[in-house]
């Protein structure tokens, strides 16, 4: 069925191979393209893709592309940068690193923050070692495709005890191309013992162009490492976005993940965390807002492999018009993982009769001394609350917007980087009717 598109990518691969022939990762790429040929892209017959039809992506032939960075005006850039936030910024345009736009500030000794292409020259061994963490069974067609085209992305590597106070912003800008194109960014974050960092991945569409972002981020956390990870997805409304985040966590390591999905025509976010040692924990907050004909799919999976591990998850969705939201959260408590503490909740707001939500919170538990709970709800705005606001002479649209914002803010307010939280609140309100009024209320 998708043999045409696979052939298309194989051809592209062979073309790329000539360019990158001498590079250390050639073996990785080769086995990944073979895997893709073998497994193909996922279909709705697979349980993990039951509610998401990827044929809009596999039915198109995306090319690789480059864009002259000069085409993007400084004004555009100024709007996109996080001015309020003092941060390191790596800028990628259509998947390729743009050194000219990136800002790297002074770093503690031993810390590596680099684009992957130059890191491949300087630290080939480090990268090769950590990339092999992906097993064949975990690969789906898209992550295999990403591995086959590893070229650009970011490498963040912290030595033991390093603490980077300034967040690192990975800014992926896409658009400004006439032809449909694909980019396959790959990020690698390696945190040694006791290190701490905040990483922001922003995916932003520059205009309404048709493109496909296929991104993979791998995180390797050593003992007592701390990571705050943000993924802010604001692709163009015509764009396709498939992204996965895979984290392995050693003893006492802590992750806080925030995933905010606002853009994209067809979006799939995967987060998979392996809590491999005692004391490891993860918090996952997620918000998806979809309208028009958007389709947003969030899959999370946490494996509690050892005792005394914890996971807390809150995902919320707001679906309007013909939009469709999918949530699948899986918590697996392995045999010896006693004293696991896992909480998961997914709440959805359906604002239109044509919108749809498919949610599936799963628990798989093989240990007895655990505290596990999950909940899922689908509903609409509370009539009593609406009445309360209306009875205080707030018109219907404003009242609805206010309540919708309050629902979404339950996730956003957990973000503790002020500039990001404020910006997101501003953007979320911007999507609602009577935005200006609400801003006044909310401020």
């Amino acid at each position, binding site marked *: 069925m998708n043999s045409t598109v696979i052939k298309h990518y194989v051809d592209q691969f062979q073309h790329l191979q000539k360019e990158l022939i001498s590079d250390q990762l050639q073996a990785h790429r080769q086995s990944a393209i073979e895997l893709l040929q073998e497994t193909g892209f996922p279909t709705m017959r697979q*349980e993990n893709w039951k509610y998401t039809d990827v044929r809009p992506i596999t039915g198109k032939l995306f090319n690789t592309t480059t864009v002259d960075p000069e085409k993007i005006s400084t004004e555009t850039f100024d709007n996109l940068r996080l001015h309020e936030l003092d941060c390191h910024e790596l800028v990628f345009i259509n998947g390729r690193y743009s050194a000219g736009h990136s800002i790297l500030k002074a770093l503690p000794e031993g810390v590596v923050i680099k684009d992957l292409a130059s890191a491949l020259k300087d630290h080939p061994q480090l990268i090769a070692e950590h990339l092999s963490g992906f097993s064949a069974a975990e690969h789906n067609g898209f992550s295999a495709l990403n591995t086959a085209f590893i070229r650009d992305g970011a490498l963040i590597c912290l030595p033991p005890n390093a603490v980077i106070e300034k967040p690192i912003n990975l800014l992926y800008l896409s658009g400004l191309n006439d032809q449909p194109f694909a980019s396959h960014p790959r990020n690698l974050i390696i945190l040694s013992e006791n290190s701490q960092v905040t990483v922001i991945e922003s995916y932003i569409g520059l205009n309404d162009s048709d493109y496909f972002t296929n991104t993979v981020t791998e995180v390797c956390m050593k003992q007592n490492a701390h990571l705050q990870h943000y993924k802010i997805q604001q692709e163009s409304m015509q764009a396709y976005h498939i992204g996965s985040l895979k984290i392995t966590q050693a003893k006492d390591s802590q992750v806080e993940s925030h995933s905010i999905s606002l853009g994209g025509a067809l979006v799939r976010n995967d987060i998979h965390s392996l809590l491999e040692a005692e004391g490891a924990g993860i918090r996952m907050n997620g918000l998806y807002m979809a309208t028009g004909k958007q389709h947003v799919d969030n899959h999370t999976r946490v494996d509690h492999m050892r005792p005394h591990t914890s996971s807390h998850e809150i995902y919320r969705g707001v679906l309007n018009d013909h939009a469709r939201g999918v949530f699948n959260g899986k918590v697996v408590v392995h*045999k010896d993982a*006693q004293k696991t503490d896992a909480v998961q909740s997914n709440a*959805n707001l*359906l*604002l*239109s*009769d*044509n*919108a*749809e*939500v*498919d*949610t*599936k*919170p*799963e*628990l*798989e*538990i*093989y*240990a*007895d*001394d*655990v*505290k*596990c*709970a*999950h*909940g*899922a*709800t*689908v*509903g*609409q705005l509370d009539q009593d609350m609406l009445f309360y606001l209306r009875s205080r002479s707030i018109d219907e649209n404003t009242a609805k917007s206010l309540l919708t914002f309050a629902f979404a803010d339950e996730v956003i307010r957990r973000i503790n980087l002020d500039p990001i939280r404020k910006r997101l609140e501003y953007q979320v309100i911007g999507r609602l009717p009577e935005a200006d009024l609400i801003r006044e209320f909310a401020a």
Partner: protein
Amino acid sequence: MATKSQDVETLVKKEYAHGFVTEIDADTVAPGLNEDVIRLISHKKNEPEWLLEWRLKAYRHWLTMEEPKWAHVHYNPIDFQEISYYSAPKSTNDAPKSLDEVDPKLLETYEKLGIPLHEQKMLAGVAVDAVFDSVSVATTFKKKLAEAGVIFCPFSEAVQEHPELVKKYLGSVVPAADNFYAALNSAVFTDGSFCYIPKNTRCPMELSTYFRINASKTGQFERTLIVADEGSHVSYLEGCTAPMRDENQLHAAVVELIALDNATIKYSTVQNWYPGDENGKGGIYNFVTKRGDCRGVNSHISWTQVETGSAITWKYPSCLLKGDNSVGEFYSVAVTNNYQQADTGTKMIHLGKNTRSTIISKGISAGHGQNAYRGLVKISKNAANARNYTQCDSLLMGDRCGAHTFPYIEARNASAQVEHEATTSKIGDDQLFYCMQRGIAEEDAVHMIVNGFCKEVFKELPMEFAVEAQKLLSVTLEGAVG
């Protein structure tokens, strides 16, 4: 409390009390499945041509189907050619008209099982249509039911006497090609129960059947069809016990419920097929398709099940909420001990307006038992104001068992309200300590806590069943507490 625990102990010592085999000449067809076997079954049952055609169609479709693999259970593949598809006690050839004519050996079996054929009057209110292997032997209380206009008879009899009703409703809820095991059942089902409650009638008594697998290597393929006409009400009980066997036996039943306008059907099950021994050897494979169709407005279908037996339980009693304002309910207690596996749950398909459903599922896992809840709540586009509440709780006893939850929620209407909640816990040390400190023995304390955990479901069961269910629970969990 003290007497209760004695009961438990005596029951435990009995091992599996219902594990005996009555030796009766059975008219058994050689193992194997092909069109001739189906023709033979149909011929033996003296069935009309359309039913044979229906069976053959189901069989042909079955051949094209693959065994489903998605459930969270593991077992050795079943060889469908090794099963004998027909077994009837010989002495029923000239059907008995009263108890005196029934083979005394059969009566003895029933006595051991405690089916009150002799004590009907004492147990008034329960009519028993006992199914011994595949052919019904005795039917009681028929007269009283007939006065009310209720038809309650073995399925094969219904085919002969009420073909128009059977033809109209058979397969209308679970189509012959619905799934692998339903198709198999449709092709080879031998008997079962048929029940029709006429308009505006409240069935004068609780209806019940006892199923029992007896002849070795005989899969049981029961077919139950219950039709509640407009404004009627019926409560139906089903209970199972099975003799001890080493080989796995397949049980693939189909139950269809149809509730027309303003009708209510309450279907209760206590399932206690042989679960296999403590090493997971033997036991029944219970792969059942149960589905209720709330076809009329204001109709109501309620499933209550207590699943303590079977090596593998795989069933999802479901409700199609088609009529406006219809109500579906599912109350379940599933217990797995030793190496038992259960993958059970429900589907609530909301199609009509203002439809409501409630799901309460309690899973208890002990030993190496694996217990999964799998449920679907689907709110279709036109199901305005649909409402669902789901709660599934798991209780874990022992560190080698598993409890899993796979709830699917699909909502397509903005006025729908769906809630799902699940928790997993074990019996807390503090709870046990509290009870023991007040002089309650550990075992009794566990018994109390487990019963409390299941209370919400047990209170939905008819009285006699509720008592039986509690006993079963303690027997099943014996040895799980250390």
